[in-house]
């Protein structure tokens, strides 16, 4: 019944099956929308955030998805600016994932701030010294860029293609995509960094504070690096997941391998710098503040295990896996490597957000713990639901995998 909308020469499940498939994701979305309604109507007392945990689950989630969404700009950067042609086969998926991540993050931020309706004051009354201002500017602009990168894809829909103007418009956009890829890359390098900067500049929070280069604390560069190390892995994961669900090969192995290789080497580089950073923090910032390493890992669930998990388990190991050709060529290992890589970056964003706030700075201050409410989970989960929905729809109605037809000839 919707067959006229489906891309040509590819096989899609029946509308009924597709509808059933969307139900769980619609469910998550509904949960999130209801939670959002409560938070906007009654206020943020609906959450378990408090004056100690001013940032909480949502910010962790925001930072995580933005980092994972880095696959979009970085793949674009590699495809159009470095000229890795093989990545053309996966760039569309990367863009859509990026779009999902960024739009989801911005939506969450809209609920997270106490006065969403005044959100635009950030632009109107901007304080150029605030890393958050920089983040806001960049991700808003970059979301625009992603939309523009997404648009031609939508225009390739069979029905829309029939409209001449749109078709032409779409093709022209394609032509100049390199420009947007460049802009995207530029914006992204900055806001990924500024997200790290947000924590690094908090010089009165010894756990987060970092020395750095000129106005940029080390976290600025580490966040850029970790995001471009994890982004591609996340793109691979999502595509692989799509392949598993559709039981098809959608992308040639070469594209995966290129991304995995780059991901691995970048991660390795990141881990080395992260270790260096940790040491310089440990022998610089920490003693200057009159604290010792253990002061940060004594209380509550936050122990030294965090450092081991972040650097060794979810850093060195996936880096190794992805750097060794034999390993990454084996699908099981590839997925494991990417998964651990992504877990590592999420853990890193979690630590910077929650541990920073949980560790008391005043000696007589007390450690308080925090657990999110169902409303907080709802909003976080709805981003997942939204992601699955948008990706499924795009996959169903848009030719996002150029090689799909080739890899899966339809046999009548």
């Amino acid at each position, binding site marked *: 019944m919707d067959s006229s909308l489906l891309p040509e020469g590819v096989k899609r499940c029946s509308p009924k099956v597709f509808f059933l498939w969307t139900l769980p994701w619609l469910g998550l979305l509904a949960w999130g929308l209801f939670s959002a309604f409560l938070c906007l109507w009654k206020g943020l007392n609906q959450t378990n955030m408090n004056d100690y945990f001013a940032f909480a689950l949502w910010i962790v989630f925001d930072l995580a998805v933005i980092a994972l969404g880095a696959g979009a700009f970085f793949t674009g950067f590699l495809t159009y600016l470095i000229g890795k042609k093989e990545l053309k086969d996966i760039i569309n998926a990367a863009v859509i994932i990026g779009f999902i991540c960024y739009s989801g993050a911005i939506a969450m931020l809209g609920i997270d701030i106490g006065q969403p*309706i*005044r959100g635009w004051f950030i632009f109107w009354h901007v304080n150029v010294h605030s890393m958050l201002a920089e983040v806001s500017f960049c991700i808003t602009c970059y979301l625009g860029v992603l939309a523009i990168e997404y648009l031609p894809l939508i225009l390739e829909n069979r029905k829309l293609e029939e409209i001449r*103007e749109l078709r032409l418009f779409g093709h022209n956009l394609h032509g100049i995509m390199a420009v947007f890829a460049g802009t995207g890359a530029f914006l992204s390098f900055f806001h990924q960094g500024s997200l790290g900067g947000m924590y690094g500049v908090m010089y009165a929070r010894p756990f987060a504070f970092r020395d750095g280069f000129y106005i940029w604390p080390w976290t600025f560069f580490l966040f850029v690096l970790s995001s471009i190390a994890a982004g591609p892995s996340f793109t691979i994961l999502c595509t692989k997941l799509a392949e598993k669900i559709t039981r098809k090969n959608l992308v040639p192995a070469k594209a995966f391998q290129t991304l995995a290789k780059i991901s691995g080497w970048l991660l390795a580089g990141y881990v080395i710098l992260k270790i260096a950073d940790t040491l310089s923090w440990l022998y610089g910032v920490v003693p200057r503040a009159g604290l010792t390493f253990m002061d940060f890992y004594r209380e509550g669930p936050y122990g030294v295990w965090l450092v081991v998990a972040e650097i060794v388990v979810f850093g060195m190991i996936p880096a190794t896996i992805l750097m060794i050709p034999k390993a990454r060529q084996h699908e099981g290992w590839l997925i494991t490597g990417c998964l651990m890589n992504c877990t590592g970056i999420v853990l890193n964003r979690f630590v910077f957000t929650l541990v920073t706030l949980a560790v008391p700075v005043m000696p007589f201050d007390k450690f308080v713990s925090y657990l999110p409410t169902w409303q907080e989970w709802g909003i976080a989960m709805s981003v997942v639901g939204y992601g699955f929905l948008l990706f499924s729809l795009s996959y169903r109605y848009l030719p996002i995998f150029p090689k799909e037809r080739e890899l899966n000839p339809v046999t009548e």
Partner: protein
Amino acid sequence: MELNRRNFVKFLVGGVAGINITPLPWKLTDDIAIWTQNWSWVPVPPVGEFMHVKSVCTLCPGGCGIEVRKVDARAVKIEGRTDYPVNPGGICPIGMGGLQLLYNEDIRFTRPMKRGGPRGSGKFVDITWEEALDLLASRISTLRTAGRPEALAAVDGNPARSTMAITIERLLKSVGSNNYERIPSAEDTYSMASFLMQGTWGPTAYDLENADYILSFGSGLLEGWGAPGRVLNAWSLWHESPSKRKATVVQIESRASNTASKADQWVAPRPGTEAALALGLASVIIDERLYNSEFINNYSFGFDDWRSADGNNHIGFKTLLQEKYSPSRVAAITGLNPKDIVSLARDFARARAPIAICGKGKGDLNGDLYEFMAIHSLNALVGNLNNPGGLLIHDPLPLAPLGELPADAIAQEGIKKPRLDLAGTERYPYTQSMINNFADIIIDSAESPVDTLLIFSANPAFTLPDGGRFKKALKKIPFIVSFSPFYDETSLMADLILPDHTCFEKADDIVWPPGLQYPLYGLSRPVVKPLYDTRNSGDVIIQLAKRMGKLVEAAFPWETYEDILASRARGLFDSGAGLIEYDGTVPVWKRMAQGGKVKPDYATFEEMWKKIEAGGLWYRPSHTYKNWGTLFKTSTGKFEFFSTYIEQAVSSYAQKTSEEIATKAMGIVAKGDEIFMPHYEAVESEVDRATYPLLMVPYEMINLSSSWLPNPPHLNKTLFDDQLSKEESFAEINPKTAAEYGLREGDRILIKSPAGELRVRVNLFEGAMPGVVYLPLGLGHTAYDEFLQGKGVNPNDIIYSGKDPLSGHSIWWNTPVQLKKV
């Protein structure tokens, strides 16, 4: 143009672009942002003309000078006055939050009412003042015609000697009842002690600011003791600069209260053994001849052994101490170290101006009479009675008496009858009023001997440390009249409500703030017009009298309560010397020490009164120090370590029975001469300490109202979350004791005493004495609104109190309890 898909898309794109170049979306964005800045449900305080009204805070007897900032008719802020000698500038948190009591309509009676449902249900129906007054007047008249005027009783929480207090007592007397009950305070116990030892009823006056060694027997100097505004300022003076400290403060208390923690030295004897410690210190002072021999040899009686006219030998105070209160013996009683007792005694006696003070916590509750006598004798030993930096002995404030009390036959009959509570009878010869006995007797009699109970400025159902005895008594009393402005626990039991103004809506006096070393009369002014249809209880009493026939009316020849205030104040004028202005340049305590006469800064009474009404103040910054020869009004004319008053009382009682039985009836365990001297009596109770191995001691906080007044909501911000968490309050327990019961921080426990049990959470506190459980006073309200109701528990509910020897007041400071983990 036909609408095909192409045009539709054009239209769409064009439309979106179009709208965005119009100002519309931008204007909207701006407008809703502006809306968030002006939400209708965020109150906007109206602006208006700013005014400042000077007055005196009467939320507690401390009587701080306050200046209320007003915007038009609204009072918006209470601030301390610097042109008032009690509290140069600062005020306590309760006074600071006072406006929340004035303006919280949910906790106030806004008009007279009568009960409209079962007692305690809080259901009342409106009536007019006329109806209300007629109802009460006729009820009292009926009692009188029935020949039992004494069935009218009153419970009064107004400070002793205040005009409101004597007005209320006058009403009862004119009707023909002696049953005027006061809420006993440490001041009552102290004046009894000083009467027994020096024969004067004058106010207790501590020259704290000029003292250089303050030995505090559990007095919560930082918890709201005495006149808090004044005491906290004295604290500041003592700590003027880190380099040149002016005074040493030693706190004797079983718990690390703020005072104990901030003091220079903290001494922690077992609760209830303070008397023994005081006598131990005295014995060291005597052994080491550190006492003031001029005073002891010439102006004291009963120090050395003596022989009475009847030829009997009596042991003196000195011998008593040597025999029974050596440091080692006292150490055994108090759990302290003998060496510490000795060095403490030396420090105290060698100080230039040492002073020993008492009155546990805020001093809102009675003390232990023999303990106070023991502490008083410390001051005598070092000869600092009526000396700068010591304990000054004054006559009461020279207020004019209210004049002859005409009494008709009925009244005379009534007044002849003994008080219900037996205060002033041979068992409790020097006690003025015994509300604990009052409750007991009502509970124990088949039918309540009290028919009508009037309650003024008191919430006995909440504040009395009696394990709920008074609440029980209330249930039996046929007719209860509450004059409280607030829906407090006691009012909820009342049948008739005649609501008073709050202290910010009426004029009233502060007669000598507790402990102040010079005579001071404070007058509060109405800072706002009464908000509701309430009436000054003083006026109501006059109106009531006018309804009860000639006689009672004749006792109240005034139009309004302010007339009564003025007529009493005339005495201040007649006394000659006095000032009504204070500029803050020379503090009164300094000026007094410098000496010199005081020339009144007013010529006529009218001028004086007018100025007092404007400035709220009359005081006399001068004093004749020492003067030991004529100071003491005892039968010996001297300061008596051996109280001849006690001897008289006991022997006259003994004539009827035997000294044995008499002293037993008076609750005294001691034998022989010790009975008549300060001594330590171990609290003997029939409670089995095996079942109740621990002690529960209530404590007070300056930032939590434990008086009859509700706690202003803002003060909830100041309670720590290990004092109150959600609805649960905490008991302070020493980690060692907690360990014995396997308790961890925050655990829930039951504290059980013979009087009842309470459910609280555990707060491990090293400042708590092992074996003792500490609960804060002021929580656990069952009345009031969502800010107070059901928050925490009230230790008074489980206090199991014996009677203090001789005074008969309750022993509330150590209740045997047991713990159970839940």
